[in-house]
């Protein structure tokens, strides 16, 4: 079984090698520019030949992404990217397959493909641009829009309850979930590299800002004033600390997470929960994925990263098993198998 990490080349690729000649046509100030830049930063670090990268997308602002990458790319139809990407990966497991989706594409029209790709654990990397709005259709609420959001199709505020991508990933038996934000290029690049290195379906949720239709959707987490108190950068094996001087932390109280401060009420660093991204049991991952302001920080970084057999590995094992047993080695063998008679 090949994984996505190949032997590094003699002439390492650079960011420039991954930029296509097409004019990038997102709105000025769109968070997508930063994601594109983080991606072209991440790919040269992987040591994979450029021709082995494939970018697949559905429909929406985010889905224009493949046109801007100088790799193989396929801009498909609304919501179906994970299904197309699945076909690409099964057809050629050597490829490093990336699938770009917006929140509407992934979680509304393509919700079914999204959960099933994750359930199968096929080795593709899904990057979810979550701006909690429909941009390309000019401003309707999306399945991740918060309740009460006023949009063109919810003039009195959305009455629907939103999806949280992380909960869906874990509900679908996902093996890799990371969250990052478009205002943090370094973290994005890092998460893309982690996603590529994970064998199995990787889901990176990027909290992305739509300047036109939902500006400031993530300001509660990204603004300078909020950043320290509302961003929890999780790292495997590290205590779950945050806040200005890393004095705040999370600890488990019964079956609930609570925010505590080191030095207050006798709390020391020993009381703080240590992040185990590699735990098979997703309970804590789910709890981390669900955290949000104002009572909790938003967890960023690799929340879950578990190795499990991929779909293509399982298929390959099955194929080998059948091959050793089978009496047929060609279609001609098959034609002549079973009840055959000759008319002379």
């Amino acid at each position, binding site marked *: 079984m090949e994984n996505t990490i190949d032997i590094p080349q003699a002439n390492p690729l650079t960011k420039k090698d991954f930029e*296509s000649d*097409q004019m990038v046509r997102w709105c000025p100030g769109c968070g997508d520019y930063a994601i594109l830049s983080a991606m072209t930063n991440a790919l040269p670090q992987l040591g994979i*030949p*450029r*021709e*082995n990268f*494939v970018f*697949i*997308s559905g*429909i929406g602002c985010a889905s224009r992404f*493949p*046109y801007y*990458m*100088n*790799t*193989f*790319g*396929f*801009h*498909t*139809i609304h919501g*179906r990217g*994970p*299904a*197309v*990407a*699945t*076909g*690409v*990966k*099964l*057809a*050629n497991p*050597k*490829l490093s397959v990336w699938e770009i989706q917006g929140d509407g594409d992934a979680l509304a029209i393509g919700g*079914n*493909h999204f959960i*099933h790709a994750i359930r199968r654990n096929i080795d593709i990397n899904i990057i979810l641009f979550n701006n909690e709005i429909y941009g390309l259709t000019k401003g309707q609420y999306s399945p991740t829009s918060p309740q009460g959001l006023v949009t063109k199709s919810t003039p009195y505020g959305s009455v629907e309850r939103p999806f949280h991508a992380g909960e869906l990933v874990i509900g679908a038996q996902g093996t890799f979930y990371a969250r990052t934000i478009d205002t943090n290029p370094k973290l994005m690049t890092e998460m893309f590299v982690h996603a590529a290195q994970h064998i199995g379906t990787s889901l990176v949720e990027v909290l992305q800002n739509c300047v036109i239709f939902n500006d400031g959707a993530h300001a509660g987490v990204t603004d300078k004033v909020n950043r320290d108190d509302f961003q929890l950068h999780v790292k495997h094996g590290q205590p779950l600390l945050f806040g200005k001087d890393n004095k705040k932390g999370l600890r488990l109280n019964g079956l609930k997470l609570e925010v505590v401060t080191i030095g207050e009420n006798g709390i020391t660093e020993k009381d703080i929960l240590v992040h185990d991204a590699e735990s098979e049991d997703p309970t804590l991952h789910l709890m981390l994925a669900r955290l949000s302001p104002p009572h909790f920080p938003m967890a960023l970084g690799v929340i879950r990263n578990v190795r499990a057999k991929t779909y293509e590995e399982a*298929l390959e094992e*099955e*194929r080998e098993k*059948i*091959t050793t047993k*089978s009496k*047929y*080695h*060609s*279609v*001609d063998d*098959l*034609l*002549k198998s*079973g*009840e*055959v*008679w*000759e*008319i*002379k």
Partner: protein
Amino acid sequence: MSETIIPSKKATKELDKVVIRFAGDSGDGMQLTGSQFSFTSALWGNDLATFPDYPAEIRAPQGTVEGVSGFQVQIGKIDIYTPGDEADVLVAMNPAALKSNLKFVRKGGNIVVDLDAFVLRNIEKAGFVTNPLEDGTLADYNVVEAPISSLTKTALEGLQLDNKSIMRSKNMFALGMMYWLFDRSLKETEKYIEDKFKKTPALAEGNKRALNAGFHYAETIEALPAMYKVPPAQIEKGLYRHISGNVATAWGLMAAAERMGRKLFLGSYPITPASDILHELSRHKNLGVITMQAEDEIAAVCSAIGASYAGQMGVTTSSGPGIALKGEAIGLAVMAELPLVVVDVQRGGPSTGLPTKTEQADINIAVFGRNSESPAVVIAASTPANCFDYAYMAAKIAVEHMTPVILLTDGYLANGSEPWKFPSTADLPPITIKVPHKENGTYYPYVRDVETLARGWALPGTPGFEHRIGGLEKQEKTGNVSYDPLNHDKMVRTRAEKVERVANYIPELEVIGEGDGKLLVVGWGGTFGGMRTAVTELQRSNRKLDFVHFNYINPLPKNTKEIFERYSKILVCELNLGQFASLLRSKFPGMNIQSYTKVQGQPFLVTELKEVFIDHLKD
């Protein structure tokens, strides 16, 4: 066939052809019984065609009409193209089987019933008010009342078998009776039984005993005093096997993928009557086949498109409701100009319709059923065995012309089976995949072959050929996104022209007959057997009519117009409300194109078609 098969005095009669129908509860093993009879007859040298007729419900309540499963086979010493209009012999294992199958038996035909099953409870369950064996219901038929259940029980006495297993052997008793009646050997079925019950010798012994008991019973009783011979047909020399339409479709696709040196990727979602293609292909993953049971019809076709993009032969299989769901994705394959085979095993519709019944009403959705100008190649198989050939051709056209190809089969072809003189794959037409090349060091994904207009197929993983494609309109040659009005106009016309040019690579139509130019009878797809039989029988009695059958629907064969122009009347027969006739009228305005249609979930009957043709010959 006009004489009674079971006459009153001992004789051996020779028949040209005969139709036998087995019917019983869906758990009674009627499909197995029918296929064993067919296999034995094929070995004997008969030509034949079979058709199973089973309920949509998996196991409807025992003894009810809804739970009846039937299997019809026509065997002959002459060429057999259909399973036959009406049965000459019906084997009915219970009152419900009699109730639901009596309409398929020729008046004067023969009915063998299991007398033991005709008890009051079963009679009422089947919906008879009085016992049909006694109330004159069967006055027009020759009835053999055989106590099949009790005789099976007696025959199996002493074996370590429970009552359920004993009763499940009674189909072999009935089969034994038919083997005697048609002078068939028990050998093949005995071999089959031994193989099937290798691990349970008591069951093997029981089934063999029942088979022999039925054979000897038929030999002994007065009611069955004659044996019938249907002599071997004049069949081309060679190796034969039985094949159903769905298996033939699967194997044809495999043969094509093997020939082109690519893997076959099937993305499919289970749906009646197409699922057997998924089942069959899933068995052969050691032969370069990848199958994925997708989460829905859309994922099925999209994964196939992804596989094609990455260089394998992408295929999706479904039936009408699934094809409706796949429309947008097929449009993507049209726009991205990728090879794709979409198999539509047609069934009765609209909506869920008649899942287990046949129909030919998807020609419109196949040719026109996508948004905007979205041309695809549409071809149709016409016999269970030639599903192999057309599946092969579908894949060949898809990769050589870089286009989606929709292959239409139907429930009748899919489940029907016939003996097939199978080819060696070396004799199949070659499949040529053109290697894409660069122009002055740059690869342009929409550079086209001058003859076919097919674009290049550069695969991910090929250094220097990185490119982007997608569902947005393309600039000609470069494939970059383009909203330019004139470019769009040109690309729309080019995609249409590319599909039209497939006509240069498909066989021309062949006219069957030497009529006087008055009437041309036209069929397409799965109605071939009935049409051919009706036409041949009329031609033999010196009626002047000709016949053409279409396997290529879009584009049409190049000589279609020239042939049509020779006739004053063209009669298009199809199992829908005239979809192909409309298509032909729009292509050839001014011609006298008439339509004969039927939408009953059933194939045409030969007698029905003959009457229609004779009527049309009158005026």
